[in-house]
């Protein structure tokens, strides 16, 4: 989703403001200009949450976190940026979840308060630096005034201002009142990256100690006083409704308190989840399947295949591709991706307490304000009456960019006296997800004298953006769906990318880790290998030829090739495959090594990734995200497919919607390229890389190219010689 930055408001500049806080302290933050008048509000005594930084008289620095932690390490990376520019030890910083407020905490790339698209560091790196640098400058001025010395003669170190000539030293906590009345500098001086002490070091994550001893509280762990427990069954066919349902059988189960029947679902409310589950199982529920009762996966593939025959909207054009495609050596291929569920480790859940004039919500969600809005719309309450306690998230991957679960829980809670925790069973979580859609990519290309001269890429799939962020859906193009297809890092003289919008009635769709590039990069990188073969060229050499004008890309590719021992000898039915990409602001070159058994079963033995993600905040987190992202992508390549029959999702739990396990993962080596360029995203690129790297390795090992995910071993079984 990196392309969304094209639509971000450039006027949204970081503006700093200072104000004294209740209990004493300096309040600083970037916010909209109209909120900046709080500058001198020293006497209000009220904490106005239009800020990111709070410094207390006790020296504690509190960072109000707009971005949620779901394992990506953002509750460490953003504090590191702040601590670096403010010049405080990381241990002096604590984080606090921001309340829902798009104006103050909107992601500068999306407007709305959202954590997703591998954007957090990209969006907040400079604003956070500027805010912290301004705060530091104000503290320095305050100290200089206190001492009657020149501010230029003062410096900062470890949370204190120091005047070397006089040997004076004041901690930030002692300066908060004086600093609150210092005018904020228009353009604070940022540190020279060469002097960074924290950014670029493997700082320990701040959120992990409580995650190894059971103390961390996820949304599913919320236990407000008097809470009851509910679980639900939704109509198994999307778009269907509830028919007859006699609640008696459930109410007969000890511990069951109530049955809530809504238009599309039944929920059983009980003293604990076990009673709720038994109560639900006891019910004989009739469903009205609705208009999609006959839908099947075969229909979905057929429909997208047909849709891909139409011309799409042009998303990018270079040169004269039609002319360049005339002549010998034209090849075509198509690459397809199936439906996928998110299967976050923490099943969907949401705890809600609705009263006539309030609604309180406990949840872990990537979109605070969207959650607030849906609760307001359902209850009819004004947004300020909706309180949301956001929690650590047990895996997002795009699932918690959707507030549908909050909506369901609020609707159930409206019928319950007191707070109710709604927990989806794993079966319900998988069968009522919003799925990564089916995508089809139709490729065409021509090689002349060993050189790639023409390239066409048609992306076919639903426009999730049109539903999710309508202002970003312009000229009929889903910027996410074509991300990775346009603005290739390769130098190709004649090129056309077009987009065919194809919605899938009967299956709700949503973003999934790696988003559009999962489809476009799988297609583009697979097709590059096909073209290289056509050109009689080695896949590395062929790519290198296309990267002559892209030194960062070339260096990243070369690093991966060198570390992976590209070109070294391999056993029979063993192969290496490359995937190279520039998406989410990061260059990643990945080389997978696979062995394909005679029966077609693929073993991924080793993966090497070289990563140039610009300025690195926490290198250990970058490595962790690439490792985890690769494994997420390998799971999809190996096992990932949701299928539909009679309008129903066929898979239900981890036995038939499989995840890679520890005994199935390859060894992984990640190599980072040092850089002072703008930071790129790292949460999703690994996932994007896994599928094409493995597919190309299989192609090298067997000569068979995988054109639809997941890998089908029956296509790879060794042919018996006649």
């Amino acid at each position, binding site marked *: 989703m990196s392309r969304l930055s094209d639509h971000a408001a450039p006027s949204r500049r970081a503006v700093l403001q200072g104000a004294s806080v209740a209990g004493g302290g300096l309040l600083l933050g970037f916010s909209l200009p109209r909120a900046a008048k709080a500058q001198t509000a020293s006497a209000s005594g009220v904490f106005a949450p239009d800020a990111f930084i709070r410094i207390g008289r006790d020296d504690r620095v509190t960072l109000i976190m707009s971005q949620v932690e779901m*394992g*990506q390490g953002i509750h460490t990376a953003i504090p590191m940026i702040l601590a670096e520019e403010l010049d405080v030890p990381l241990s002096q910083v604590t984080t606090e979840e921001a309340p829902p407020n798009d104006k103050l905490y909107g992601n500068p790339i999306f407007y709305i308060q959202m954590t997703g698209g591998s954007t957090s560091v990209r969006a907040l790196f400079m604003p956070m630096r500027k805010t912290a640098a301004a705060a530091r400058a104000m503290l320095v001025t305050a100290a200089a005034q206190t001492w009657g010395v020149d501010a230029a003669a003062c410096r900062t170190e470890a949370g204190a201002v120091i005047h070397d000539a006089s040997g004076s030293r004041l901690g930030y906590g002692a300066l908060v009142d004086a600093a609150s009345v210092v005018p904020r500098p228009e353009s604070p001086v940022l540190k020279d990256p060469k002097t960074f002490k924290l950014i670029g070091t*493997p700082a*320990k*994550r701040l*959120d*992990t*100690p409580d*995650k*190894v*001893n*059971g*103390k*961390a*509280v*996820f949304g*599913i*762990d919320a*236990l407000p006083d008097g809470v009851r*427990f509910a679980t639900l069954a939704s109509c198994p066919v999307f778009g269907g409704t509830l028919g007859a349902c006699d609640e008696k059988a459930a109410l007969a189960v*000890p*511990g069951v308190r109530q049955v809530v029947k809504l238009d599309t679902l039944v929920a059983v409310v009980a*003293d*604990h*989840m*076990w009673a709720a*589950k038994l109560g639900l199982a006891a019910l004989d529920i009739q469903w009205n399947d609705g208009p999609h009762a006959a839908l099947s996966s075969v229909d979905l593939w057929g429909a997208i295949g047909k849709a891909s025959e139409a011309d799409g909207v042009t998303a990018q054009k270079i040169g004269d591709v039609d002319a360049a495609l005339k002549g010998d050596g034209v090849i075509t291929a198509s690459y397809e991706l199936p439906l996928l569920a998110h*299967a*976050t*480790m*923490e*099943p969907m859940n949401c705890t809600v307490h609705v009263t006539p004039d309030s609604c309180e919500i406990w949840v872990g969600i990537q979109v605070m304000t969207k959650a607030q809005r849906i609760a307001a719309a359902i209850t009819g309450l004004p947004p300020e009456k909706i309180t949301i306690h956001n929690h*650590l*998230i*047990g*895996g*997002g*991957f795009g699932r918690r960019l959707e507030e549908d679960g909050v909506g369901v829980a609020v609707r159930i809670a409206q019928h319950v006296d007191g707070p109710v925790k709604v*927990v989806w*069973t*794993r079966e319900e979580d998988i069968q009522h997800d919003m799925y990564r859609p089916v995508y089809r990519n139709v490729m065409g290309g021509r090689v002349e004298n060993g050189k790639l001269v023409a390239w066409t890429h048609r992306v076919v799939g639903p426009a999730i953006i049109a539903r999710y962020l309508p202002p970003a859906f312009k000229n009929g193009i889903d910027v996410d769906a074509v991300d990775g297809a346009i603005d290739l890092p390769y130098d190709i003289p004649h090129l056309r990318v077009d987009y065919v919008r194809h919605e899938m009635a009967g299956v709700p769709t949503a973003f999934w880790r790696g988003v559009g590039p999962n489809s476009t990069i799988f297609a583009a990188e697979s097709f590059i290998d096909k073209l290289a073969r056509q050109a009689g060229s080695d896949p590395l050499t062929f790519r290198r030829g296309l990267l002559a004008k892209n030194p960062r890309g070339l260096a990243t590719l070369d690093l991966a090739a060198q570390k992976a021992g590209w070109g070294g000898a391999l056993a029979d039915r063993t192969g290496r495959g490359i995937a190279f990409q520039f998406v989410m602001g990061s260059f990643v070159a990945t080389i997978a090594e696979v062995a394909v058994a005679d029966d077609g079963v693929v073993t991924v033995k080793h993966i090497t990734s070289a990563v140039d993600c610009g300025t690195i905040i926490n290198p*250990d987190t970058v490595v*962790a995200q690439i*490792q*985890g*992202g*690769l*494994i*997420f992508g390998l*799971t999809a390549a190996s096992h990932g497919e949701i299928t539909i029959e009679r309008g129903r999702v066929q898979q239900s*739990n*981890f*036995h038939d919607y499989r*995840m890679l*396990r*520890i*005994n199935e*993962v390859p*060894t*992984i080596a990640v190599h980072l390229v040092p850089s002072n360029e703008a930071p790129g995203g790292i949460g999703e690129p690994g996932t994007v890389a896994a599928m094409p790297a493995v597919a190309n390795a299989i192609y090298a090992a067997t000569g068979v190219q995988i054109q639809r995910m997941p890998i089908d071993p029956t296509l790879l079984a060794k042919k018996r010689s006649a």
Partner: protein
Amino acid sequence: MQTLHINGDTHQLDVPADMPLLWVLRDVLKMTGTKFGCGIAQCGACTVQLDGKPARSCMLPVGSLGDQAVTTIEAIGATPEGARIQKAWLKAEVVQCGYCQSGQIMSATALLKAVPKPADADIDAAMAGNICRCGTYIRIREAIKQAAQS
């Protein structure tokens, strides 16, 4: 009435004998460190120890526990292996979202107790029942080996 021995305490609870230990821990005793992931013994998020051996609490009726001592993530740090595993976990920075990690740590601790110097095959066998959707497996393996050395 069920009598349960959990983390050194004895609880008398009015819960049905067929109720899985997972829900007794989470919803009745409000010990939320043990997680729900699948409910069918496929993911390991709910792993606890019974007399030091790993068990999936989501399919473990409390009526079947008898006198066995239940240990959960909340108390595993008090055992020597648990403390070593937790330390190694933080040193190797294993954790991502963290949701699976209670279960991973309970399985890893049981492994270390049974096999003080586990080989890769031992790690595979002991840990394959624990899914990590964030894909922290590489570091789980590293951390178990580190803990075994410590």
